């Protein structure tokens, strides 16, 4: 089943990547040729392709979680390092929507033995979904150690809303089981049709959070809270990782990657 989903994801992304790639390439070439008026049209094609690609990626990942076959590779990590990585990764998409991420995260926000890639994916989905449900403004992400226990509490909230947009407190409930969610009873965003990609993103964030052993809650004030289990700092050092290391690098020479 997982192999089928991986193949399906690959085959859906292949033509879409060509559409997006050609759009980017033609934008560049037309800009050089002085045809600026066509560049904006191609941006519509490129941006729509990106939206569809994000939706496909989220749906495929959600399906993989649903069949219980997401592989986890837990390593010692620092919550601050992973959060900083996510903040940097989502910044361009937020800026394109007139949004900005305000991150409140102390360097000693805690440590854990978790899969850094899945944690980053979970946080990224959460931030981007909240942003997609909102207009221009500030997305506030606060990371704090929960009182009386190890781990970390991530609270995300849209602080500023544009005139006429949804009021705080209207983040939709996330259904217990995505498969039970029909189109007819989909949660609403202040009565408006919920952005499908954001809905899938919230579902995926919640599923990944629970897969990592955490709790996912939608709270009053348009706030989403994640609580993730941690480990004492001593355990992190005992396993040989330096504070702040979030990703295990392969043996040298390192693999160089893009952020796609």
């Amino acid at each position: 089943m997982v192999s089928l989903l991986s193949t399906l994801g690959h085959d859906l992304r292949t033509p879409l990547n060509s559409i997006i790639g050609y759009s980017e390439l033609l934008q560049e070439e037309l800009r050089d040729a002085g045809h600026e008026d066509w560049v904006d049209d191609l941006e519509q094609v490129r941006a729509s392709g990106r939206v569809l690609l994000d939706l496909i990626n989220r749906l495929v990942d959600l399906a993989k979680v649903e069949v219980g076959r997401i592989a986890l590779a837990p390593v010692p990590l620092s919550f601050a390092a992973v959060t900083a990585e996510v903040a940097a990764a989502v910044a361009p998409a937020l800026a394109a929507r007139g949004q900005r991420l305000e991150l409140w995260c102390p360097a000693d926000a805690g440590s854990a033995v978790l899969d850094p890639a899945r944690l980053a994916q979970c946080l990224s989905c959460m931030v981007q979904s909240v942003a997609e449900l909102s207009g221009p403004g500030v997305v506030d992400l606060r990371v704090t150690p929960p009182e009386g226990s190890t781990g970390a509490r991530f609270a995300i909230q849209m602080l500023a809303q544009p005139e006429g947009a949804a009021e705080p407190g209207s983040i939709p409930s996330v259904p217990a089981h995505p498969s039970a969610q029909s189109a007819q009873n989909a949660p609403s965003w202040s009565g408006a049709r919920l952005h499908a990609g954001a809905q899938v993103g919230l579902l995926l964030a919640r599923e990944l959070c629970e897969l990592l052993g955490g709790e996912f809650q939608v709270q009053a004030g348009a706030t989403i809270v994640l609580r993730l289990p941690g480990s004492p700092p001593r355990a992190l050092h005992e396993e040989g990782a330096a504070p702040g290391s979030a990703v295990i690098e392969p043996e040298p020479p390192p693999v160089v990657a893009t952020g796609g």
Partner: protein
Amino acid sequence: MARILIVDDDPSFGQIMKRKLERAGFEVTMRDGPFGTIGELKRGGYDALLLDVLMPALDGGTLVQLIRGTESIRAVRVLLCSSMDALELKGLAEKLHVEGYIPKSTPLDEMVATVRAVLNQPAAS
């Protein structure tokens, strides 16, 4: 000028990468399938290989092993390039000990930056 070989059985995306890399100043040759890659690498004096992964006839992983087992071309820098899940691609790149990987959904400017970064690394011994 660095020389790059692209091997991709999707000619559409292969052409995108070829044109983008040529605009960035690289000398690029493209092959639309895996067969003949070893011979082309032996003849061409390439600095890097951009290699698609999921090709029905001969997959990229097997091709990497063939390249690493061929003395005269084993040091060529290899970047895996695929539409497969980005995390799976990263894992495969680490498993095969290649020098880099590029999800095909990556913006083209970032692709070029990754190729440059790999070319700035010393070649594998």
